[in-house]
């Protein structure tokens, strides 16, 4: 089969004409999608880093309970990890072998009050009251503190923490212990 130069040019033009059609597909506008993805990614990474610092990675294993009470909307959170007491994401006092160093407590090893914790909780509560007033609300009549603790936390440490928070300076009166909801297991039939 042979073509004249004119026919050959026509075939080439036709073939070349097909190429730009593909360019439309190559230039699909994916910028909005990329923007959205990048913003979401940054938000998720930020969120993950905040919760990671709050819980100091996965060091806290919550105990399970059948309790059905929902969580309150607003309250300060204190986390007792096996290595530290963490308040609102910041490490306050170190924990070693399930207890706080005697030097951190008023009265030494036999004392209950963790001085630094009481002081920081007092300032946190003052801040909470200020925020409430700024929002045109009354400060909480019965200030509450959420406590998240590792399942192995000894009673003595929990007691010391609640005692410190209940001291007059800090003034927390109600404590909510956060647990993981237990779903009952039934034997397979």
């Amino acid at each position, binding site marked *: 089969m042979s073509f004249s130069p004119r026919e050959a040019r026509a075939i080439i033009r036709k073939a070349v004409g097909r190429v730009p059609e593909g360019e439309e597909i190559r230039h699909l506008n994916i910028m909005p999608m990329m923007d959205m993805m990048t913003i979401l*990614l940054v938000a998720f990474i930020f969120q993950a880093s905040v919760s990671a610092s709050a819980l100091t990675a996965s060091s806290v294993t919550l*105990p399970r309970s059948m*309790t059905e009470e929902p969580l309150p909307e607003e309250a300060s959170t204190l986390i*007792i990890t096996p290595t530290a007491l963490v308040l609102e994401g910041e490490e306050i006092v170190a924990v070693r072998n399930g207890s706080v160093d005697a030097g951190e407590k008023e009265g030494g090893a036999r004392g209950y009050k963790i001085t630094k914790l009481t002081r920081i909780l007092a300032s946190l509560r003052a801040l909470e009251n200020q925020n409430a007033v700024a929002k045109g609300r009354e400060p909480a009549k019965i200030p509450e503190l959420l406590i998240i603790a590792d399942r192995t936390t000894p009673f003595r440490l929990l007691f010391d923490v609640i005692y410190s928070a209940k001291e007059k300076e800090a003034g927390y009166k109600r404590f909510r212990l956060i647990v*993981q909801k237990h779903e009952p297991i039934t034997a397979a039939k």
Partner: protein
Amino acid sequence: MAVKRREALIEQEEIEGGELNLIPYLDIVTNLMLFLLASISAGILLGQLNTMLPDKAPAGASANEPKPDTNPDEIPLKMVVSVTKEQIILWSVSQREGTLQSPRLVLPRIGLDGNRCDGGYMCESGWCDPGKAVCGPNPEGEQRRLPVFDYRELNRVLKEIATKYYTPSKKRPLDTYQAVLMADDSTPYETLISVMGAMRCPMPEIGEASERCYLPSNDEILTKAENPVDDFNRLYDTTRVDYDPEKHALFNDILFSRGFE
């Protein structure tokens, strides 16, 4: 030949034009997004238990002695649950339901491998086999074994006590819902939570789903409301509703204590 040349030219233009290939970037971002979405909360359902420490009585005070003319049913039992390393002891300060020397109930440790369970909280290993509903070695790796007691028996006896004193057709005063939880310093948090769970509300039988119990309240809004029961928040007005141990809390007002001074 000319078509090939033209295509090569376009490709060359693309390379020289500096257009980035964003496909790998999009792949990474999409994978990260999926991973982060899946890892958020990891489906953990949270609940909460309320508690507080008892206030210190002023020197010379005689621990809230009731007035002589008080109705015996309205005198708080002052139930105490003492958790030691090896057992749970149930007794009362009022001496109406056992004393420390002669307790109402003593529960030794249980939760050994092979015992029946309906959740990890009933096993020392923290693992309840979902197929057989028995305790066993933890397949997720051996964790520290924590003491476990027969919480259902504790719950059953507390329910029996509440039924004995506050039924039938009786209004149960708010201060009678108080009980003291006294524990050894080394008692782990998980054991405390399980004991508190057994003290607060009637527990379902093994394998049955739990239902949120109604808590007593003297909330001003509820006491003035036409309906003395708030089904949404699961609260009831103790002054207008007869006590029902099947639906209502047992001893939900729990005070922590390390002993007597």
